[in-house]
């Protein structure tokens, strides 16, 4: 990526990024542009470079922040009306680590409100348009971040992935998108969706950039008790040199059927041939429990969503409804006016699967299905090093095509959610395009804590 140095100033990099952001305004990528503060920081970095002082590994690199990461610059709204006017006094750990390396946030990006969605159409601020076809969706929920990288406005962008929210928009726009192992990067200061599956990750243009971002942001954080000790930078392990070492790549037979677009199946086949030609072994696997991953996901995640989103009541921060003569009315009206329809659906489904009489049939059943899914991944990784699968059943779909049919929208996530339930990492990689010019993405999946080798191995697919 372009980093500021004696030849290229941080101010130049930031000005270029801001200009591009404005040039592509009609894509509705940003909910906030951090113009003044970004330029100020750029000039500070330039003056340090000029004096020969030490600067960070991301000196002057312009990046975009998904609008569910808390930081004092601009309002953090998660693209939801109910968080309108919320100026965070705290900074997310991941943001603090990027800033400490002198990266410069140039703007906050659009998402499906509270990251509920697979198209960025559920945003209070309207949909983000696909980088390759303005009539199509950006994917979601991290649609703004994916398009900001795909249109080359920024060098990288942050995302969150609860069920595919990084990998699917990455594949819809032709960039790399990583969902790391659960617990790899601190979730402190990121708007919670489903605490047992939420992951922080990135959109980037190359595996090398992704590796750098991971080495900067991974590690334990006392502010997030579910963070793992920094294995990313410390696992000595055996040095993996993919060109010398032959890997076993698993292909899931259950995913090779008519529900997947022919051009995506062809892209997968051509990558399989590429891997074979490089001496890697292809292993065909059956993973029948994955068929139930989406149903389990749309029980577990709404249950956690209903709990996590109960905090938004209009009392302490964000939007507060005017129609309220009584405290109960204030809660009801604030939540009714402040949430998007998809937020309401998920909260109500969550309360349904958790309510007495249905808990055993739905929530407990899904928690048991989750165990089976985890076991299936463990079994798969005893037979192969990585899995290679499609990210989603089709390339980017048209705006409005699925937004009124929640089940059709949920089916977008059918190949991505099982990773989140199992806590394993997945990297969406660009894998060509359709005849009509839409990007195709594939995902490389590895066992827990294999993030670094996963990124390294992805070079074999270029």
């Amino acid at each position, binding site marked *: 990526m372009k980093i500021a140095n004696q030849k290229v100033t941080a101010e130049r990099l930031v000005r270029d990024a801001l200009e591009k952001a404005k040039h592509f305004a009609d894509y509705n990528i940003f909910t906030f542009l951090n113009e003044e503060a970004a330029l100020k920081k750029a000039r500070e970095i330039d003056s340090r470079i000029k004096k020969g002082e030490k600067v960070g590994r991301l000196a002057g690199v312009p990046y975009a922040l998904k609008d569910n990461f808390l930081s004092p610059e601009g309002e953090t709204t998660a693209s939801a009306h109910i968080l309108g006017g919320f100026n965070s006094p705290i900074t997310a750990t991941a943001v603090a680590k990027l800033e400490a390396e002198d990266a410069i946030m140039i703007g906050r990006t659009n998402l499906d409100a509270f990251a509920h969605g697979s198209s960025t159409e559920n945003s209070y601020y309207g949909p983000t348009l696909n980088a390759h076809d303005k009539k199509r969706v950006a994917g979601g929920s991290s649609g703004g971040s994916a398009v900001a990288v795909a249109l080359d406005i920024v060098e990288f962008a942050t995302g969150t992935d609860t069920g595919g929210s990084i990998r699917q928009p990455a594949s819809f726009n032709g960039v790399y998108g990583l969902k790391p192992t659960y617990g790899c990067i601190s979730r402190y200061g990121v708007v919670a969706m489903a605490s047992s599956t939420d992951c922080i990750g990135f959109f980037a243009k190359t595996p090398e950039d992704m590796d750098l971002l991971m080495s900067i942001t991974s590690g334990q954080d006392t502010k997030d008790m579910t963070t793992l000790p920094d294995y990313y930078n410390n696992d000595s392990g055996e040095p993996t040199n993919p060109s010398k070492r032959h890997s076993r790549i698993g292909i899931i037979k259950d995913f090779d059927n008519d529900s997947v677009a022919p051009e995506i199946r062809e892209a997968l086949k051509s990558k399989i041939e590429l891997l074979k030609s490089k001496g890697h072994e292809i292993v065909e696997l059956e993973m029948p429990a994955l068929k139930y991953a989406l149903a*389990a996901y749309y029980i577990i995640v709404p249950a956690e969503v209903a709990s996590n989103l*109960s905090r938004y009541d209009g009392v302490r921060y964000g939007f507060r409804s005017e129609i309220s003569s009584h405290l109960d009315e204030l809660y009801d009206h604030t939540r009714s006016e402040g949430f998007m329809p998809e937020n309401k659906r998920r909260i109500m489904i969550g309360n349904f699967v958790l*309510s007495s009489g249905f808990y055993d049939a739905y929530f407990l059943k899904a928690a*048991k299905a989750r165990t089976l899914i985890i076991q299936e991944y463990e079994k798969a990784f005893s037979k192969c090093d990585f899995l290679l699968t499609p990210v989603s059943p089709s390339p980017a779909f048209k705006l409005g095509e699925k937004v009124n049919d*929640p089940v059709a929208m949920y089916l977008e996530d059918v190949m991505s959610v099982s990773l989140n339930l199992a806590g394993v990492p997945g990297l969406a990689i660009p894998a060509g395009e359709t005849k009509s010019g839409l990007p195709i993405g594939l995902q490389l999946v590895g066992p827990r804590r294999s993030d670094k080798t996963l990124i390294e191995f992805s070079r074999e697919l270029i």
Partner: protein
Amino acid sequence: MEIKREDILHLAELSNFSLTDEEVDKLGDDLDGIIKYISQLNQLDTDNIEPTYQVFEMENVWRDDEILPQDADREMLLNLTKEEREHQIKVPKVL
């Protein structure tokens, strides 16, 4: 199962939503479709399988019992609310 209007109203109450009639109808249809979809889990045999609620590999993360510096103080937090009086958050009547 078929979801009824009274079920939607009950779930809305649990969720602290006051819904319009139109929303009740639409959510009824939507939730019906979603519940039908997630009910396919019934076909999966989960006998003798333990549930999983989290995938974090560690348990009981300990630290010393001391107050650490906080990122936000009382003043900053009170600034976020719509109405404040005498260092308290003001809300409409409760009773």
